[in-house]
């Protein structure tokens, strides 16, 4: 029951955000944060659930963005169709990674990073398709069922809806047979194989789903920022997404959302500190990594527990039940 209240509160908070903050700049930043959340959710499946350290999400994000922008801008494809095709194109390109998913830990990280660099160079150099380093201007605003989304608030709600859908989809996925198989793989690959789980198939499916969500996020980004440049899709982006996931809390979907919001909003909030901004941000990342094993998502229950423990002498049973819930 408690978690239901929390859920409703969270939804209310997200819906109310653009009404409370009427400044369009901040509304835009909120939208950016939610796009980050979609990216982080996708990577959470890879890193947090399946234990696959991927540094290539930025490439799929870029593929989604350019596919959506080119389809709407040059071919007049409606936004809704372009949006889905962007996800599909990203997912399709993730099949290129099938041969490398069997690589172990750090090799996989470096290989996916290499993949990101290759895709970035294609975006940068194939000017006929992407506009190269000049970028791509005037990506049209999204139009849904005949309504053009013109204000920042409209766009925010579009992104929020997609974020919600992705969240629920991944939530269902991780609680299904598929999710349990992933957990088995991440804990003990050999044992999982012995149980009849096809490792490569599952790992490839993970990449496929993560790439699809990144492609959707890319499409939203293209129509939200309305200007694309290959520099938005370098491996730095991939690394940023990984930071979101780990800062938020590995293995936790709410953590991925929280991590994305923190990583996008903190530099904005620190803007007044001028040149010290990124130093403070780096320090924050380091400190967060030190204070909590499970990122911010792990921090909240730990805080609650220590409060419960503080009250322990009065009600010893409350602590026990809190522990059990963990």
């Amino acid at each position, binding site marked *: 029951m408690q978690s239901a209240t929390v859920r409703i509160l969270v939804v209310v908070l997200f819906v109310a955000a653009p009404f409370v903050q009427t400044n369009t700049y901040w509304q835009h930043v909120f939208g950016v944060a939610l796009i980050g959340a979609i990216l982080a959710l996708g990577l959470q499946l890879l*890193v947090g659930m399946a234990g696959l*350290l991927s540094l290539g999400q930025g490439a799929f994000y870029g593929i989604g963005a350019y596919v959506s922008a080119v389809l709407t801008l040059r071919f007049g494809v409606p936004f809704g169709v372009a949006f889905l095709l962007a996800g599909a194109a990203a997912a399709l390109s993730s099949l290129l990674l099938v*041969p*490398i998913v069997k*690589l*172990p830990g*750090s*090799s996989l*990280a*470096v*290989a996916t*990073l*290499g*993949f990101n*660099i*290759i895709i970035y*160079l*294609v975006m*940068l*150099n194939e000017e006929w398709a992407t506009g190269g380093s000049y970028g791509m201007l005037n990506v049209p605003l999204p139009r849904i069922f005949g309504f053009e989304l013109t204000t920042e608030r409209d766009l925010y709600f579009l992104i929020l809806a997609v974020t919600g859908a992705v969240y629920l989809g991944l939530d269902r996925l991780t609680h299904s047979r598929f999710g349990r198989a992933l957990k088995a793989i991440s804990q003990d690959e050999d044992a999982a194989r012995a149980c009849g789980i096809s490792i490569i198939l599952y790992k490839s499916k993970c990449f496929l789903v993560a790439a699809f969500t990144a492609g959707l996020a890319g499409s939203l980004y293209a129509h939200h920022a309305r200007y694309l440049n290959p520099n938005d899709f370098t*491996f*730095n982006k991939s*690394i940023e997404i*990984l*930071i979101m996931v*780990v*800062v938020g809390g*590995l293995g936790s979907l709410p953590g991925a959302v929280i991590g994305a919001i923190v990583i996008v909003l903190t530099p904005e909030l620190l803007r007044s500190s001028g*040149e*010290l*901004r*990124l*130093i403070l*941000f*780096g*320090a*924050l*990342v*380091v400190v967060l*990594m*030190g204070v909590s*094993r499970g990122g911010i998502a792990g921090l909240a229950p730990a805080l609650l527990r220590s409060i419960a423990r503080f009250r322990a002498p009065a009600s010893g049973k409350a602590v026990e039940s809190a522990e059990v819930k963990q």
Partner: protein
Amino acid sequence: MSSEQVIQGIIGGLAIGCIYSLIALGITIIIRATEILHFAQGELMMVGAMAGLSAMWMTDLPFVIVLLVGMIGGGVAAITIELSIYRTLRTLRVPLINVIISTLGVSLILQNAARLIWGSEPLRYPPLFRARGIDIAGYAISPQLVWIVIFGFVMMALLQLFFRYTRLGIAMQAAAQDSEAAQLMGISVKKTTTYTFVVAGIMAGAAGVLLGSLFFASFNMGFLTGIKAFVAATLGGLGSLTGAMLGGIAFGLIETFSGVFISTAYKDAVGMIVLIAILLLAPSGIFIRAGRRV
């Protein structure tokens, strides 16, 4: 493609390859000792480049001294972050991935601190070698490149000697291979880990001065170079010293020649494709004997 271009390509590739090797060696010894993928290694290189440059601004120094200053700069930066951050994180027993992400934080801190100190403009290194082109078998070769290759090889040879013949070097190797057994032999693994970071910082600092003297020094010169060194280390077989050295040189040569032969725009892509291909064909890297644990 004339033979002169080939010779120049080889020397240029070797020079940039030596720089990658020096950084990759640091990355490798850190992975061996702690399993940390050290993303701030490129930034240690940048600190070395900046330290060397600052020393030259103060007074006219011979190259060897500048190199030493760069090495000290890299080493000091490394020991500072190790003692203040990584050791604390290890004491807190946070999961490895947290430490790896914290190295990204450190990289951000070092980059932006350097931007505060040295500004955001690329800084030109004064010419370090006054000699004109060297004649090798009738081909004019930039002395800069030749010196970088020589210094690179000397540094790598010194590192090998350090690991083979000094007590500390052997202790570090032992601690990296089996920390428990090493501890039973009376080696303080805590100390050898710190020294590992210092040695890695020194190598990176030297690479910084060499790279700076080739192009220029700037606050953001480190990250991409560090990533490439990572790729180089993986190419050779992550976790092997020989692998890191040969991987760095191979990567430098691949990059230079694909720039000349294929296209400058896609020269980085060629390196990555080679990397992915090698990982698929020989997952433990090209320079590792099969069956040996990396």
